[in-house]
């Protein structure tokens, strides 16, 4: 159990602080009572905390072995959600498994990080230069991206692609390979736009011109900006944000919870939350750099990237910088599935930290 002490408790403290902010805000979102949001969220966080610490204890070779199974499971779930998923806002997003809402796309991100880390950990720098070795992991990325796009969940698909790309990049992909990959992107984007659902196109158009449709699709963006703006420097005071308390904010307990924080605590409070998020992201990245095995490095970087993308997409969305996309603010937004996935990710991250000096049988080239 000496291992327990090797967990970065400072980092755990930061996680708890973020979850604490989530609890306090959900308490306000419910109008100043712990139900129906804050208390269940706290209970789930407690479960998530145990899960996280348990995973942090697992030796990395176990994770490596489990990664293929996790990845296969995530693909099965992604296919299943296409056929028997529950519809939310015109997209198939979640599965009901044993009374639990499971969002396969969230789990797929973690599984992808694990499987890519496993793959790249067996590749040395030389192999990375050979494009043939990059083709299998490319498919590992493209298959879940395609399945999530089909849900259709554009935001998550882009995040999965981004995580994959960041792992390819840091694993040591050659620059010429990167340039070669980036070149066809514009035409792909055009092709993809043609295949977007009408509601997704509407999100993009209203994002560009929210004032054209103030009560329709532009409502979310406008109300969200009103909430942010009316917070001012010092905020309207805890439990006194009019936009949130009067339900003008759509999905204030989930995707738009940051606007509640900004409205009630002002720029000071919102900037503090952003600072906390930056600390969590940077902490994860530093853990990645400090890790002495390739697998751990990539896991830590992938998880941090995932967390970063969560924050980036959610905050950009509530500030009207990108179209509204159904991405929660990790640990703060109300929701069980997202919470467990984030805690699972942090468990893996802490595991790489705990086992940062562990030697892994990382092949640096059986075939060379």
């Amino acid at each position: 159990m000496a291992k327990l002490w090797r967990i970065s408790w400072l980092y755990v403290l930061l996680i708890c602080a973020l979850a604490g902010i989530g609890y306090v805000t959900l308490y306000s979102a419910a109008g100043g009572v712990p139900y129906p949001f804050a208390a269940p969220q706290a209970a789930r966080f407690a479960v998530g905390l145990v899960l996280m610490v348990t995973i942090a204890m697992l030796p990395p070779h176990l994770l490596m072995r489990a990664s293929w199974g996790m990845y296969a499971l995530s693909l099965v779930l992604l296919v299943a959600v296409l056929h028997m998923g529950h519809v939310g806002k015109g997209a198939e997003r979640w599965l009901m498994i044993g009374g639990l809402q499971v969002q396969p796309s969230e789990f797929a991100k973690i599984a992808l990080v694990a499987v890519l880390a496993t793959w790249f950990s067996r590749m040395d720098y030389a192999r990375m230069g050979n494009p043939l070795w990059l083709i299998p992991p490319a498919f590992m990325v493209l298959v879940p991206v395609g399945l999530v796009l089909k849900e259709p969940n554009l935001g998550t698909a882009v995040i999965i692609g981004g995580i994959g790309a960041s792992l390819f990049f840091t694993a040591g992909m050659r620059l010429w390979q990167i340039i070669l990959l980036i070149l066809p992107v514009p035409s792909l984007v055009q092709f993809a736009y043609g295949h977007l659902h009408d509601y997704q196109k509407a999100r993009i158009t209203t994002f560009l011109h929210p004032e054209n449709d103030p009560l329709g699709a532009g409502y979310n963006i406008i109300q969200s900006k009103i909430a942010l703006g009316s917070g001012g420097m010092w905020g309207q005071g805890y439990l006194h944000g009019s936009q949130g308390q009067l339900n003008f904010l759509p999905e204030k307990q989930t995707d738009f919870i940051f606007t509640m924080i900004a409205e009630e605590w002002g720029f000071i409070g919102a900037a503090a939350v952003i600072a906390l998020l930056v600390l969590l992201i940077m902490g994860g990245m530093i853990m990645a750099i400090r890790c002495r095995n390739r697998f751990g490095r990539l896991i830590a970087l992938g998880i941090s990237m995932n967390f970063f993308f969560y924050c980036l997409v959610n905050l950009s969305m509530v500030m009207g910088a990108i179209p509204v996309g159904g991405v929660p603010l990790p640990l703060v937004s109300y929701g069980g599935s997202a919470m467990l996935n984030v805690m699972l990710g942090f468990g893996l991250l802490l595991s790489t930290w705990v086992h940062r000096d562990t030697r892994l049988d990382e092949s640096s080239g059986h075939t060379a």
Partner: protein
Amino acid sequence: MWLKRRKRDNRRLMPIRDQKDPARGVFTRRALLCMAVQAGAMGELARRLYHIQINDGDHYARMAANNRVSKRLLAPPRGRIVDRYGIALANNKENWRALLMPEETTDVTGTIERFSTLIPLDERDRNRIAREMRHQRRFVPVMLRDFLSWDEMARIELNAPSLPGVLIDVGTRRVYPEGELLAHIIGYVAPPNENDVAHSTLLALPGMRVGRAGIEQNQDEKLRGTAGSVEMEVNAVGRVISELNREEGVPGEEISLTIDRGLQQRVLNHIGDQTASAVVMDCHNGEVLAMVSTPSFDPSLFDSGVSHAQWIEWTNNQHTPLINKAVAGVYPPGSTFKPAVAMAALESGLVSPTDRVFCPGHLDVGGTRFHCWSRWGHGSVDLHLALKYSCDVYFYEIARRIGMDRIAETAHRMGLGVPLDIELPHTRTGLIPTPAWRQAHHHHWNGGDTIVSGIGQGFIQVTPLQLATYTARMATGRAVQPHLMRAINGEVSPMANAEHWPSLNMPEKYLEALRAGMFAVVNEPHGTAPKAQLDLPGIAMAGKTGSAQVRHVSRALRESGHFNSANLPWEYRPHALFICFAPYDAPRYAVSVVIEHGNAGADAAAPLARNIMRDTLLRDPSNHTTPPPESVATVDDSFE
């Protein structure tokens, strides 16, 4: 260098601590690059947040306030209408309503069923409730029943535990305590239609009513008042969270009418079930003290909506209950027109009061014979006798002498065939025909048209109100205008002063000649209206009868000697008219009476007018500020 690195990489199973993994260097550099990108992105978000929250903060804070505060207008109470003594004629009464808040009951249909066992709901109610339920949000109450009685409310309160979500709420409704008695004067209100709402946002408020007839319509804007407002904090779906600020509206103004409610009641009692109208006016200032038109209708039926069957019944009724005959009924004035012809003749200078005309019972002009009402004639008559006997031949002759234009001009000045300033909608002007009017309608004016106009027949049409005004003007020589508005919010109108009204500029001696003739009609032997004599000591009344044919009586029928209008079907009988003023020596009150198809004015209208005048004199409303005790008006029933 790249080659070198690759070579070193080929070593297997190096202790990680000592491993010189070139990929780690690449990783570290690229991870640092990622961190830079992350830091940049988060920094950009923070900058953007600062821009929204601080730079544009005021703008968004204003938008948030607009979101939050919902301003609603409050319907002001409608002004009361009272009679000259302050007795309420139109009032606002609390309207207790049962509402259902759908979100406060788990079983909406069950609650409605239990409610209907206490207070019956008809098919119309149920359909309306179902419709409102579909269209409204669950926190907006649905009206189950309004106009609840105390008894019904008690039943609801008693059963409150089994009626979750049912609450009792108070609104207002317009009530007319006098009902049919003043329906034609007060009018009624109804919910505004889309056109009304388009012209006034105030009318869009729930509970607002628009006057649709009578004073309610004519004085609608004064009665309406000014809306108050209430600012409420609302949430995104419009549910009210709290009340922030409340500004009560200004109630509509209270209108005091010139009407004496007690006198109005007496007049109605005297008319009984005849189809008639009567106007009592103060000769000095034109105040209308009573104005009755029968049959009448119940104005309160309009507030809750008139049924189709009721409407059909009213509009098909040949006694026209919805029409105020005093201002919208037009009748040939018959002999009541003769004083106007006499005044025109005197003013023309072509006829003097002492000029005599011989009446052999008829007048032959251009081969046409015009009959006097008396087959045997009246012999030689001057103006006084002509008025007293109501001699047709005398008036045929002087009308022929002076011509129609002079008659019309004088009649107009006396208030006949011209619009009057009465504060009522849907009034009619009547008509005093002239050759020019006839020509405008592409007909030739015959000499015979002038001659029949001399006795108030032919094309002449006047309203009972015009007759009363005409009588009042004759009695005082002032150009009084009939009016119903005595005071607004207690401030008495200048119209109440006799000095407000200019002189008619008719020589007093001529007016005196007319009055004397009308005195003779009632009080001298062989006058046409002996039944109109008052039994009050020291007070005499002057009047003029009139019978207006509604159907041409052929010469053959007349000469057969069997003509008796009383045998005609009701709708072909002549109208009976009477105008009068009293006291004769100091005129104060003028009365006009028109009984539709009432036959001879002397027999039907004169006694009615006498009874009305008698009550008016006994009550003397123009000289009292409080209503007389009821006993004053009840002693005379023996004179009916």
